[in-house]
């Protein structure tokens, strides 16, 4: 995934990114934020690897930045630079292992849409089948969901061209690609700009039967990485969903989706994020678009939680 012409020199220190940054909320250390990274670069200082890992890549800084900084692209590029200069063999090992586990099943030529489940969903066969059934018969589940690619992108490892081509080629014939992983969703929008790419959250919540199960006293937990990667469209979409279902969402006053931080190379203080999402909300249930978020809420709060893909079931999330 290439940097999209980010410009750290454009940062004027307005701090609007801090208002939506989970890392800032946790640590209150400017150094560990997009603002801090940009200012360090302006002074010829590259942020350290540990500092860069404090960013969970939720992407909330992108839509709020009034300047052409493109903070998430900047941070991803900084990680790539680190990777090129250092070994980080443990991470390379993880990516290599993920690559070994990729199935090579072809997608049938008649697939209208292809689903790329995230790692957690891919590992829960019953749930995955349920999601596929909800999405409809014209959706096929890709055997190669690019798990190694997601890991590589997040870590800043270059994805070999051959591997990327191998991953993208089967997707070319589909009309729509549905990405379960928010970072992959973001990357695909860059790699396949003319393709219809949808987040799994949107693809599921647009289904009438699923949407109808979202209740007034629910807190609907939008998956933040995909949301911010397609902010103008998804902001409108979820605003409408909120109006229609009259539910609460994890959308803050600036329109950013507050992440749990559970999906991150180094999840930090997920409990604090979950607490903040739920603070002051009198909700009966959390409906989570992402399994990682659902797991986090189930682990750190007493509020019942349901994964979006199970909303049409009668039994509780497990």
């Amino acid at each position, binding site marked *: 995934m290439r940097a999209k012409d980010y410009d750290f020199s454009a940062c*004027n*220190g*307005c701090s609007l990114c801090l*208002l939506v940054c989970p890392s800032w909320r946790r640590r*209150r250390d400017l*150094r560990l934020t997009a*603002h*801090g990274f940009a200012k360090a670069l302006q002074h010829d200082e590259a942020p350290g690897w540990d500092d860069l890992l404090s960013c969970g890549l939720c992407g909330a800084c992108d839509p709020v930045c009034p300047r052409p900084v493109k903070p998430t692209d900047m941070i991803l590029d900084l990680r790539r630079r680190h990777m090129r200069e250092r070994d980080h063999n443990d991470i390379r090992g993880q990516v290599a292992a993920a690559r070994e586990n990729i199935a090579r099943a072809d997608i049938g030529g008649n697939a209208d849409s292809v689903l790329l489940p995230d790692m957690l969903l891919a590992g829960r066969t019953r749930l995955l089948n349920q999601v596929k059934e909800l999405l409809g018969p014209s959706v096929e589940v890709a055997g190669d969901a690019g798990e190694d690619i997601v890991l590589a992108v997040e870590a800043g490892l270059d994805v070999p061209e051959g591997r990327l081509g191998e991953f993208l080629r089967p997707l070319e014939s589909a009309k729509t690609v549905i990405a379960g992983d928010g970072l992959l969703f973001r990357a695909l929008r860059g790699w396949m700009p003319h393709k219809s790419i949808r987040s799994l959250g949107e693809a599921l919540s647009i289904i009438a039967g699923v949407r109808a199960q979202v209740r007034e006293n629910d807190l609907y937990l939008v998956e933040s990485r995909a949301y911010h990667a397609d902010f103008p469209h998804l902001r*409108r979409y979820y605003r409408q969903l909120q109006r229609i279902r009259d539910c609460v969402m994890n959308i803050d006053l600036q329109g950013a989706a507050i992440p749990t931080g559970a999906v991150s190379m180094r999840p930090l203080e997920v409990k604090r994020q979950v607490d903040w999402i739920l603070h*002051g909300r009198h909700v009966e249930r959390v409906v989570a678009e992402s399994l990682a978020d659902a797991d986090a809420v189930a682990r750190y709060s007493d509020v019942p939680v349901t994964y979006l893909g199970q909303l049409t079931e009668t039994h509780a999330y497990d």
Partner: protein
Amino acid sequence: MEIPIIEPGVLPPDPVGEDSLSGIPRQQTNPVRWTGRNWSEFVVELQQNGVEIRAERAACAPFVTDAGGTAFGMPHGVVIARNAAQISSLMQAAQRYRVPVTARGGGLTTEGESVAFGGVLLDMGGMSRVLDVDVENLMVRTEAGIFWHGLAEHLRRHGMDYLSAPLNMTATVGGTLGVGGIDINSARFGCSADQAMSIQVVTPTGDIVECSDGENPELFQRVILGYGQFGIITEATLKIRPYTPLRMHYLYYRSLAVAIEDLQDLNRHEACDYSGILTMMDRAVTLLVAFDTTEKQQEFDRLWLPRLRGHGEAVFMLRSMLYYALRPWRVREALFLFRRRMSLFPALQPAEYMHGEEMDDRTVVFSRAVWKYWGGRQMVIPDLATNEEKFIEAVERGNAVCKKYFSHYTLYCVGIRLRPEHQDHYELSCIPSDASGFAYGCEFEPMLEDGVYSRDGLQSFKNEIFDIGLDLGGSYYRFGGMMKGYIRRMFGDAVVDKHLAMKRRSDPAFILNRDVIF
């Protein structure tokens, strides 16, 4: 030529640094960087007391300038504020080793007031927790390093809102209480600083003191609107109110004077909940009024709309078209206004924040627009504050200065309701000493965008605006840092020396925010 050593707190006739070229006249720009004497011993003591200080470049770099982007200073080290006890340790050590400490909230100063010219940069952002929300009694207790927007997010979960805050989301509570805080509802609620009911302060010598009108009132008087000279605000109890969306109305004028007269009339009669004037140069003068309730709006429509001399947008557009049709040599200005209107107006009424006629979260809307359309690598926002009677003249004269220097600029005018019982707070502050009932402030903001302007040129512009204030008598919002040369001239020796004496007593080593006022 021997250059005398100047002790902190003394204004020499020509304040240049020891390293300056002698014989060359200079304008007041950056202070000389503190030399670093005793730094190592100071750091050792801090570490022994468990106060983390970061000295690497990446930690210091974010603080090298402020929102103004014209004052630059690198601290020797950064301390992230965590609690009052930690700050107390820091200040005690700083006094002992005579290490300057610059406290910084959102860094939204423009004259270098929150820039450390050596010494410690104390980042108050580390103290950002909301401690208690009392919905029944309409109060909140918060750590003072919190952004106003962070406070708003928290209060909204309780259905509440703060009373009044700067129209900039990343100003902090503590920083604002120290300088004023002006909002479009300041004509109703007063400046933000006036809504503080009590504060916790760490004094320059490290005492942790709770103060209010009833408890340690002398310190309360000095710290509120005190530009950080007499203590660091670590916690604050503020008034709050139930959150309401607002209904906004715009009226367009051709004359600054007429718009200001109408604004003052509205404020005197409490005809609306929010009011202010925003202009594009002096061609598009917009009076904005807004309401928390439908009833207030209906009353305004019935009683005031017919009286006001502004027009709706359609009439204004027609008149403007005729104006420029008769003045074809000003077509570039017309095109600028048209383009700006096409881009700015949707940003001021974004669909995602509008429910019919109601706007949610106006601060988010306006603050975003401010940063997008007026923000840049440099920002200069000289201002004038006067009593009611002098305000029109101040604005008209300031407008003429703007025209002289810049093709495109904005004026932003608001009224500020004063609290008679807070007169002692207002001494040596942004509130003019001759104002009663209301004070009025105007910011003169050129649209620099990313153009390159010399610091001297920008300083000359600011000086000409400030000279108007000297001539008329009044005050300024941003009179610290690079503009502090105006303080003694505006407020007079008696007031300044009185505050300087208080400063010397409370801060013997003269280390807290030393380059801001004195």
